[in-house]
């Protein structure tokens, strides 16, 4: 196990270099210039621009810029500075990340709990009315785009009915985050429900389920222990990678509900052509994602003893 974890951590290095380089090059390829963007419509002299470009190292060749950037990360844990405000990227992320973390965890809990419950109910009654209703409902969630769902829920539950807050003024208040979290969770929830439904319906026919019944176990135990332990293995995999994706922020949902999280910050940096900020942000997200997937893989071995890492 230890060796496996070490190997996986080492494997992260090339993945990390590859993704950051790719992002760096893609941002570089975008038209526009962050320094010119600073001045907006105001006129300025080429020498000022040149000086600023030199200050941020933007006049160097792209690979040298990349090298300097990576050196900063590795040696000083310095992810660069935001050009517009001059503040370090880590600080900006430090503000945005807790908001996203709260939103993501709330969405994750909703997704996991409701998704699995719906999936298990549907799977146990495969082919019956409850199953059809759940399948239809999840199909609806998958096919409706997030911004449509976001505005509909906002209008109905917050504005018309007044049950929930329409927008987030205090990102530490979970009551305000509830509605955006539901919107954020909706599509994944549908996938989780469908995945667990299929898995449950399939395992229900397994021989070991027959054995469990033949042992005279109560139904609660047959389903709760024998069925779920087997059925949730693929679901856990999906949930793990999805948690990584949720941590990456949600540009649309954050926009609708006025949340200043990671998604919004990334969107801002893209419009301002701020390569360093963007790369810094995304780099941290890549790390979060890699760690999430490592945890999922380890969890997988815990859930399924047939998988052994050596």
């Amino acid at each position, binding site marked *: 196990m230890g060796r496996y974890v070490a190997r996986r951590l080492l494997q992260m290095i090339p993945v990390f270099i590859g993704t950051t380089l790719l992002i760096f090059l893609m941002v570089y390829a975008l038209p526009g210039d962050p320094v010119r963007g600073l001045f907006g419509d105001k006129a300025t002299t080429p020498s000022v621009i040149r000086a600023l470009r030199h200050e941020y190292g933007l006049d160097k060749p792209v690979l040298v810029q990349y090298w300097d950037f990576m050196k900063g990360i590795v040696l000083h844990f310095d992810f660069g500075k935001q050009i517009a405000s001059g503040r370090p990227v880590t600080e900006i992320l430090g503000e945005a990340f807790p908001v996203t973390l709260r939103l993501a965890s709330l969405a994750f809990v909703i997704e996991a709990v409701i998704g699995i419950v719906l999936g298990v109910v549907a799977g146990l009654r495969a082919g019956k009315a409850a199953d059809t209703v759940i399948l239809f409902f999840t199909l609806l969630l998958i096919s409706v785009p997030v911004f449509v769902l976001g505005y509909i829920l906002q209008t109905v539950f917050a504005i018309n009915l007044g049950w929930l807050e329409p927008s987030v003024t205090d990102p530490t208040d979970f009551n305000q985050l509830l509605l955006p979290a539901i919107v954020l969770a909706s599509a994944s929830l549908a996938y989780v429900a469908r995945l667990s439904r299929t898995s449950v319906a399939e395992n229900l026919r*397994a*021989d*070991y389920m*027959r*054995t*469990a*019944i*033949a*042992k*005279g*176990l*109560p139904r609660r*135990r047959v389903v709760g*222990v*024998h069925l779920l*332990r*087997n059925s949730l*293995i693929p679901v856990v995999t999906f949930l793990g990678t999805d948690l990584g994706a949720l941590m990456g922020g949600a540009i649309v949902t954050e926009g609708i509900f006025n949340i200043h999280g990671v998604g919004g910050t990334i969107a801002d940096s893209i419009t301002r052509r701020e390569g360093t900020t963007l790369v810094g942000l995304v780099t941290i997200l890549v790390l979060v994602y890699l760690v999430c997937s490592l945890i999922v893989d380890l969890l997988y071995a815990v*859930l*399924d*003893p*047939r998988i052994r890492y050596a």
Partner: protein
Amino acid sequence: MTTIQKVSAVPSPRDAGEDGGPLLEVRDLHVEFHTRDGVVKAVNGVNYSVNAGETLAVLGESGSGKSVTAQAIMGILDMPPAKIPQGEIRFRGQDMLTMSAEERRKIRGRRISMIFQDALSSLNPVLSVGYQLGEMFRVHQGLSKKEAKTRAVELMDRVKIPAAKARVDDYPHQFSGGMRQRIMIAMALALEPDLIIADEPTTALDVTVQAQVMDLLAELQREYNMGLILITHDLGVVADVADKIAVMYAGRIVEQAPVHDLYKRPAHPYTRGLLDSIPRLDHKGQELFAIKGLPPNLLRIPSGCAFNPRCPKAQDICRTQIPELEPVTERDGSELPGRAAACHFWKETIHG
């Protein structure tokens, strides 16, 4: 008239049913499956009984209804699609088909248990064998996790799994086929049930291991004086362990007999065919005998005797009239105890 209850010194005395009848008695059991294509009549009026300490072998091809009957006894048929339109399954005199689901659950595993064919898929792959064995004690006897584990180790010792203590936390896939089947047997034996149903317990094993597993099963059965229903299509397995045999075809019992009588003098052409198709060393080099044709489609069972399209002795009556399971007698009319056959021409078959 009084019945004298014999209080004997036989080890682990097991009383029969409350009415003094057999341990388990199946009466006129019918099972059908309602599918999109129609009604599949898997079991069509099966009667058999098992006493404590007795081994009944149920013999038949795939699809003859032997496993379905066993699953009906266990109460593990999926209903629907399965349906039991008529029949009785009396365990110690009580009809299990009229019991509540909870009463039946309490019988399963504790009083009647089952050994399945493929131990790898029948054991839960993500739970350790110790957990799966211990579950019996935890659920039925309310033992703690720790006590249950101790008992699980004892059980594994009981079925001769080497290094039981070290292997109790292993998972099913870490055991060999024979060892896995031993675990299945241990699980069925855990609560020392009155009756064990073994559904082709050795089919997935190689021949040497088959013999070991059968010996173990027979030994444990003798020791605990349990009833055993052994479902198999392997005539070789049956001869050594069974007391009596029921041969099934298309959901009916076509012949019933004490084990050695059946081998010596079959009274049904189907049984004869089965016996003839056992490869014999003294017939080396000759063509192997096979029963012509295929088992019937249970959606459309042939009229009359279901075996008639494949039977070498079939006459017109076989195509129109279903033969009843009747007692078989000697040529002079004297009784042959325990023997019955469902064939219009049993006399010709048995007496040649």
